[in-house]
């Protein structure tokens, strides 16, 4: 099969111009519409998960008050909150949403290489969400096994939804993985093969590097979840004993024998740890572009940033058992996994340094997206540093399964990616909608979210130091927990409610500005990357009008000395402007 360069394919490539409302907005194969569909559904389920977290917080803050929260419902809320946020919101929104929107635009293509598969990906995702939500309406309700779904407890008595809810969860995960695989094949192929002329790998914006690496991680990691889901499903439905050991159920010997619960944990975390980076790497990429654009300065140490993304991605497959230090696995594994885990801190720290060094000597425009990006640096530093506690095996022993863990992972993969999401949503809003958002509302939203979440999670670390265990419906009367800790919990709940309510500002802003926002120019931020250089805003079907753009330079030509503007778009021919500034040792 001969390879046909895309430049030649361009005309032959049937674009399936949509004709009717249905083909344009529902059964659409346009990556931008699919991106918005993905984003809309993800944010919708995210709101449900937010509601569930408020239910949890109400119970924790005011344990004797709310008659609609019983222990079973509490554990179901914990489980569904975690699963939805990690998989159905963050993974879907970063890759399905931003991946879909930005990849073809930033790579200068007309669409994904397999538009039909892309559409299918969204509909499978929607189906997985519907199956997941359906589990709220079946007898017994959704699973309350914790988002880790550890066997044997996820499918044995004593766990809410141990018959129906868990089955729906496993089916939903299976469908999600199929959806992700279809999308992922598209992203990888498009980025590797279909970039426009002149767009070499090292000219790609970091957003694409982050999304690309995360997608590759996802393609390799989700199989582990799929395998564990299938095997757990076998144990549940067919009564096999892959993970299920000999055990008692309410005084009776169960029919299981010999299975290994630790095997499930290995499989789960072989997915679960890369999953952290599936969420984090796109966030790293997107925030790099936001920071660089609004600092009017090139991203500092671009090559290091790319290598760090790749190194983090590679290392993320070698650290999974740091979630299992107290699991009862062979304790000698601890030496290996503690070492690999702390090694990962080095490239991660470098990324942080480079973000800050990008701001250094910049010309920082402190608008809403930039505020969110700066907020992200702060929370990510905080969450990353607490990771050094938990990664170091001996320190993890007292802290494992306490609120310290909860605070850590919410800081590092809850708050931080969500701040990036908002930064990115505000940053690309003018391109997606053709309107500017309301800056004042955006800033108020930032302050409420940033300060509010810090008020939630900073004190929570200290409950963990105290030894307060996570996943407790209530502490009851516990000697080592002072009354002040309960007061602190109540305050955390109030902060959580405040943050949740503050999100209304975001939705008001998005919907209000859709009609009433100032019309956005094609490139309101003065950004260099290709998506800002489209002939139309929002980009029309096919993105580029008559001719695909050519790329003449890297993605970060901001404030180039000797140039009258403080940015040079990637598609601006380079011959006219010779760079005067070269770093030491630079050569062409």
């Amino acid at each position, binding site marked *: 099969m001969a390879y046909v360069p895309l430049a030649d394919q361009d005309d032959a490539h049937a674009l399936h111009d949509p004709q009717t409302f249905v083909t344009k907005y529902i059964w659409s194969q346009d990556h931008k519409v699919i991106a918005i569909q993905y984003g809309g559904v993800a944010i919708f389920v995210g709101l449900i998960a937010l509601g569930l977290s408020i239910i949890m917080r109400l119970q924790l803050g005011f344990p004797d008050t709310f008659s609609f929260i019983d222990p079973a419902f509490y554990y179901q809320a914990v489980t569904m909150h975690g699963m939805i946020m990690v998989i159905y919101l963050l993974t879907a929104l970063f890759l399905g949403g931003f991946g879909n929107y930005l990849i073809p635009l930033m790579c200068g293509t007309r669409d994904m290489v397999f538009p039909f598969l892309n559409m299918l990906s969204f509909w499978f995702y929607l189906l997985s969400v519907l199956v997941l939500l359906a589990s709220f309406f079946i007898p017994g309700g959704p699973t309350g096994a914790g988002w880790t779904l550890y066997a044997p407890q996820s499918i044995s008595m004593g766990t809410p939804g141990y018959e129906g809810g868990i089955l729906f969860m496993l089916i939903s995960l299976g469908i999600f993985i199929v959806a992700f695989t279809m999308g992922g094949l598209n992203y990888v192929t498009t980025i590797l093969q279909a970039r426009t002329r002149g767009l070499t790998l090292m000219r790609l914006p970091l957003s694409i590097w982050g999304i690309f690496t995360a997608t590759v991680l996802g393609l390799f990691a989700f199989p582990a979840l799929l395998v564990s889901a299938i095997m757990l499903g076998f144990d549940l439905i067919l*009564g096999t004993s892959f993970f299920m050991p000999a055990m008692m159920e309410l005084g009776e010997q169960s029919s299981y024998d010999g299975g290994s619960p630790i095997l499930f944990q290995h499989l789960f975390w072989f997915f679960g740890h890369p999953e952290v980076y599936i969420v984090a790497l796109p966030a790293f990429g997107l925030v790099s572009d936001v920071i660089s654009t609004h600092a009017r300065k090139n991203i500092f140490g671009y090559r290091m940033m790319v290598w760090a993304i790749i190194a983090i991605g590679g290392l993320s497959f070698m650290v999974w058992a740091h979630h299992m230090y107290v699991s009862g696995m062979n304790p000698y594994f601890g030496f290996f996994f503690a070492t690999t885990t702390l090694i990962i801190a080095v490239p991660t720290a470098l990324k942080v340094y480079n973000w800050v060094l990008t701001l250094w000597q910049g010309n920082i425009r402190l608008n809403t997206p930039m505020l969110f990006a700066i907020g992200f640096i702060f929370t990510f530093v905080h969450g990353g540093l607490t990771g050094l506690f938990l990664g170091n095996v001996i320190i993890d022993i007292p802290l494992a399964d306490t609120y310290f863990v909860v605070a850590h992972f919410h800081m590092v993969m809850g708050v931080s990616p969500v701040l990036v999401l908002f930064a990115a949503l505000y940053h690309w809003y003018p391109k997606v909608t053709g309107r500017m958002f309301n800056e004042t509302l955006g800033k108020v939203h930032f302050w409420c979210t940033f300060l509010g979440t810090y008020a939630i999670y900073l004190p929570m670390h200290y409950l963990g130091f105290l030894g307060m265990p996570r996943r407790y419906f209530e502490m009851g009367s516990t000697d080592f927990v002072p009354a002040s800790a309960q007061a602190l919990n109540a305050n955390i709940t109030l902060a959580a409610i405040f943050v949740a309510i503050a999100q209304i500002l975001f939705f008001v802003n998005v919907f209000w500005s859709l009609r009433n926002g100032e019309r956005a120019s094609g490139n309101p931020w003065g950004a260099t990357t290709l998506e800002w250089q489209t002939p139309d805003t929002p980009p029309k079907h096919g993105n580029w009008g008559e001719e695909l753009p050519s790329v003449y*330079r890297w993605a970060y030509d901001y404030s180039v000395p000797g140039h009258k503007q403080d940015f040079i778009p990637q598609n601006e021919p380079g011959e006219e402007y010779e760079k005067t500034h070269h770093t030491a040792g630079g050569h062409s």
Partner: protein
Amino acid sequence: MSLYRDVTNKPWDQVGLPDGIENKPVFAVSNERLALTVFMIIASVIFSLLLVSYYIRMGIGDWVPMSIPTQVWANTTLLILSSVCLQSAVVFSRKQSTISVVSRAGLSFGIGGLLAVAFVFGQYQVWGLLAETGQGVRSNPANSFFYLLTSVHVAHLLGGLWVWSKSAISLIQGSTSEHFRQTINLCAIYWHFLLVVWIGLFFVLANT
């Protein structure tokens, strides 16, 4: 190595179109071929993880090696023949100017797929056979894994057959699109991959 050079050069020092007028894909293959390759890597990860689980579970102590029914050998032969047919379809398609359902390429393609269907049916019979002789899915972890591995393999094959059937139907309807050349090619690659996976699985299942 150009990929290495790509990721180590200093992009800010290079202005202009470095590679002339064309864009530069990383791999010199079609998009479909690349996607299939990536998918086969993903499938390999799935089967590898299953085998890792297999060996870990085997070490726990209640493992009784199962005796594989002879029909599995017959099924394996079907799958090999299926792969051979698809490969000959590829060879024929290179020599033919148009591919139709009665052309040698079309016929080989059709027969190859039908043999794969027969394989799936044969595997289904093996499950029934095992269940009848008291070697059901719950009888022993070795049996559980037999069902698990064969069904995951069959699920992958069914995915291939879905693509095959779409092409086969349009072939029967008289379509002679150039697209078939690529479809035949990709199906053959995928079939060989699944054959290799199956032989690997069969080897492990029969020997442990």
